[in-house]
């Protein structure tokens, strides 16, 4: 296995944000069938160690490409752009204000008349924002505006965290009722 190939090349995919998930899954399984340690269980220790390394690499690549956020981050990493926490840049004030409002809504959700409806409304709002950030990333990346693309990623990290907290809150309320 050629470890110097990027994750897209590894799975014979075009390097870019748009990706055919079914194709990714199929190629991933084909590659695992070739490199998985189970294929080398009866071979030498050295071959087995190599297989663990190869298979680990395939899993990392697959997990990265599978998640739109990790995939977007990876695309920028390939371009030498620092993303997320490593980026020292500030997000626009209006985005941060909006995030604070959304978080307040989340915190107050259990005390509202219909907590589940409140959470559902919040979730669709956050999901819509997430969708627009991904769209923005896609076009910015395509146009080569890496700075703007990187900003989308930082926004997406906020939204991702918010969405998982909404889900956790739903689970908690589910248990209480």
């Amino acid at each position, binding site marked *: 296995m050629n470890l110097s190939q990027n994750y897209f090349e590894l799975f014979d995919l075009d390097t870019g944000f748009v990706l055919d998930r079914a194709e990714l899954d199929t190629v991933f*399984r084909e590659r*695992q069938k070739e490199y*998985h340690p189970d294929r080398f269980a009866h071979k030498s220790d050295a071959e087995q160690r190599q297989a663990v390394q190869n*298979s680990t690499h395939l*899993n990392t690549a*697959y997990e990265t490409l599978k998640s739109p956020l990790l995939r977007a981050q990876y695309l920028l990493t390939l371009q030498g752009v620092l993303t997320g926490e490593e980026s020292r840049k500030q997000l626009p004030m209006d985005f941060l204000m909006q995030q604070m409002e959304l978080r307040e809504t989340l915190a107050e959700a259990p005390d509202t008349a219909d907590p589940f409806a409140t959470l559902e409304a919040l979730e669709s709002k956050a999901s819509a924002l997430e969708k627009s950030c991904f769209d923005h990333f896609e076009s910015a990346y395509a146009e080569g505006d890496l700075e703007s693309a990187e900003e989308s990623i930082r926004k997406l990290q906020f939204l991702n965290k918010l969405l998982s907290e909404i889900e956790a809150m739903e689970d908690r309320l589910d248990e209480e009722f």
Partner: protein
Amino acid sequence: MALLQIAEPGMSLDPHQRKLAVGIDLGTTNSLVASVRNGVAETLSDQAGYHLLPSVVHYSELGATVGAEALSKVSDDPFNTIQSIKRLMGRSSSEVLTLGDQLPYQFSEGEGGMPYLKTALGDLSPVQISADILKALSARAAESLGGELEGAVITVPAYFDDAQRQATKDAATLAGLKVLRLLNEPTAAAVAYGLDQQDKGVVAVYDLGGGTFDISILRLTKGVFEVLATGGDSALGGDDFDHALSQWLLDQAPELERTPAVMRALMVQARSAKEALTEVDSVTLTLSNDQQVSVTRQQFEQLSAPLVSKTLRACKRTLKDAGIKPDEINDVVMVGGSTRVPAVVEGVKAFFNREPHTDIDPDRVVAVGAALQADILAGNKPDADLLLLDVLPLSLGLETMGGLVEKVIHRNTPIPVARAQEFTTYQDGQTAMLVHVLQGERELVDDCRSLAQFTLRGIPPMAAGAAKIRVTFQVDADGLLNVSAKELSTGIESAVQVKPSYGLSDTEITQMLTDSYQFAADDKERRALREQQVEADRLIVSLEAAIAEDGDQLLNEQERQDLLAEIEVLRSLRDTAVSKAIESGVEHLAHVSDFFAARRMDQSIQKALQGQRVDQLD
């Protein structure tokens, strides 16, 4: 002209080139070994024809016995008859103490917090005891397959954490088995039913064993299995059905004496009644006070209803975890002897609204699936399409400030996997850092399973937050973890490899292997001792008989007294436990009694020659 050999693809040219590989179901109550022969996976029986090996080991000064013979000693020698050792695999002493009431054994604490059980053969770890069960299965397989085993696939419950998996693998190593793969039990069961042949689907595996209940939801896509969620109850199983029934029997017989022996006997009776009620509608038991009690299937179903509901509630929770609705399940597979109980089958059928798979013996189905996988892993089926991709069953993380767990690898991440996380120092001049590895889903250290702790030393003194420590987690295809830590900022590499605290270190394994060789030497000594004792007895008996017969005629009084004294010397030597001493005693007595033997020989020759003419001698 050379003849070309043509073989079917995937078939070995020479059947003798097939590598012998087995699947082992190392169960809480029973264990099995299976192998693929002539293309068919089947469990292997012992010489008496039994396939199930009770997971029971009895220890005496002379060694270990495993299986039915050990099980028969439960009532007479409970402390030395170890059952359900699987429950203690990978557990720390403190965890074992919480199980204490249920376990009739005496414990001592070993190094690294590992519990040891006190037995007649000394203090033994759960790993050593499991290894004795594996040795018995491996010997059975080598005998019935006629050769050395290439390797084994050993099944473990899907929820087993790293320490429990490591302990299982250690037991195999100790038993001299090469582990081709640790396989999740539900996955093995699905493979046994050939569900991997389907294009895609969602499978629920309902496994009600002797002492545990597991429900697993698997997704398969073109020969690739993925565990979506697992759940269950580690303290619910067929034993609880027996327990419920024996409690009911006690209610019927209030005057029955409640000694441990009576209670054990009652559990055995309850179990056979439960088994009989699968076939018949009513059974009559004779209790130890000769009282007769009848129990009907209906009564038994009433007693077991709460237990069945409990399993179905766990099914519901696990489906929710997997994000699957009951009607999205394509197949339900039944595993474990307790799924023979008709009330269980009915409950499962109603819950999933479909007929569960019950064609393969539920006791053997896991071993059969493991054997199929072992055959592939040994390289006997190069064209096989089946590939089992596993996920990490429980998240792995590190302790951070304030007793919180920072997850490094989340559960359900495909394995093998490697992931690194960077940490920093929180005090100026800090030169050491405690790395505490945990497994579990909860946020607090106290709620997670502690796997290992080690200290990374030699961090160059720097301002707080300046040092960069990278901790790397590597999980292999068996789900086993290795952790290493490294200080990055100055390029000083001080990496540490750790193994879970409750597993065994490689040194300990080596020590135990050496001990078992030592023990093999002890066995040899024991056999030699018995041989020499037999030899001594034979000489003493024959010499005494000869003195009684010919002593008056052939020995003077002094010679007779001397010989009798020499016999007494050997007799006392015989009872020492040293074979070498007995051997030289035997030689000495043979030597000092030589003259007597010679005189008897002369006498018998003279007797034989009397009345015969020389020319008749040829």
